[in-house]
């Protein structure tokens, strides 16, 4: 950020440089396009509150924004989990129809429901590695965690996803931990 650069200019530059990347990530971490747009907007609104706290340099900016986005998503995910537990506790159990896991092609919706069970960080690691094709060190740098932790999330994420998709009962409590 230049010495004489105004906060609004700084935020505009950050938005122009990174909004597409953030939307792609947000869309793969949420259930709908609207949720993804809300998440991107929230991320930049946090930035607008303290633009000087964003580090200088494209890679560092991107990493900072990615972390904010994932932390926001984690907050949403935790609140939704609490609400779900509350609903399960206060409402009569409604049996849910199970998808046909024997089908040769598993429905997209089934895959995305399974992803919803994973924690946002684990889901982000899977998305960044399997869909975005990022290298392990790059993911580690963007998320601010070690490469070993990335590999652990990747391994567990693949295993969890496989188990959820092949289990006749779907997600288990262990998956939500």
């Amino acid at each position: 950020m230049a010495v004489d650069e105004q906060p609004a200019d700084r935020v505009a530059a950050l938005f122009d440089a990174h909004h597409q990347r953030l939307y792609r990530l947000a869309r793969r971490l949420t259930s709908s396009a609207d949720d993804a747009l809300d998440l991107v907007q929230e991320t930049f609104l946090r930035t607008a509150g303290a633009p000087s706290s964003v580090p200088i340099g494209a890679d560092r900016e991107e990493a900072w924004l990615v972390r904010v986005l994932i932390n926001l998503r984690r907050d949403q995910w935790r609140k939704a989990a609490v609400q779900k537990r509350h609903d399960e506790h206060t409402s009569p159990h409604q049996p849910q129809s199970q998808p046909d896991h024997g089908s040769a092609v598993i429905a997209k919706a089934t895959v995305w429901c399974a992803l919803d069970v994973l924690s946002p960080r684990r889901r982000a690691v899977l998305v960044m590695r399997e869909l975005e094709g990022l290298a392990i060190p790059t993911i580690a740098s963007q998320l601010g965690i070690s490469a070993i932790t990335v590999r652990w999330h990747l391994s567990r994420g693949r295993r969890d996803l496989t188990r959820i998709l092949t289990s006749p009962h779907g997600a288990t409590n262990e998956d939500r931990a």
Partner: protein
Amino acid sequence: MKTVPDLLRHADPLREDSAHLDDARDRIRRTVIAAASVAPLRTTPRPPRRVVLSTVAAMAVVAVLALFVASGGQQTLQAAVRFEARLAELRPVPGLVVAQVATSRDVIYLHPEAVVTNDDVARSSVLQDGPDDFGVLVEFLPAGEQRLRQATTAHLGRLLAILIDGEVVIAPVIRSAIGDSAVISGAYTRAEAERIVAGIGRH
């Protein structure tokens, strides 16, 4: 069964709805830039409630909320509240009027003419500012936008006061010129933000 990467690629939502960002990009861009345009004045300890206002009109809305709360919260707000935004100073200058900011108790000095009023607001809407936080997005009519932009451009680093019925409710420092829209980014509930929008009168 396919491998996990195959399944993820097959189910990737971006294969179907990547155009969504294009539709909303300009709106989100305006919103976040407006939020970065103004910083609250904090020469005294912060009030208990977090109030981070991003623009003039947005902050005026806070006053509407204050009036609503003071009234007991039972009546529907109407746009009959007089809203003004004026340039202001931290130090006394001949010709300016002394005033006290209601939320912070700061003493400031008001310029005599209003830059924008209720008549300059084109539209307002509720904005989700966080998982449980809501704010208000305010958009100005062209004439008001032009006056506000000119006034704030020439007043960078100094104050902009929001008045409701003649009382200063907040006076942030102008960090950059304020344009066509404004955001109130406070920790409000959805119901509070909706009441604020109703108070502005155009939505």
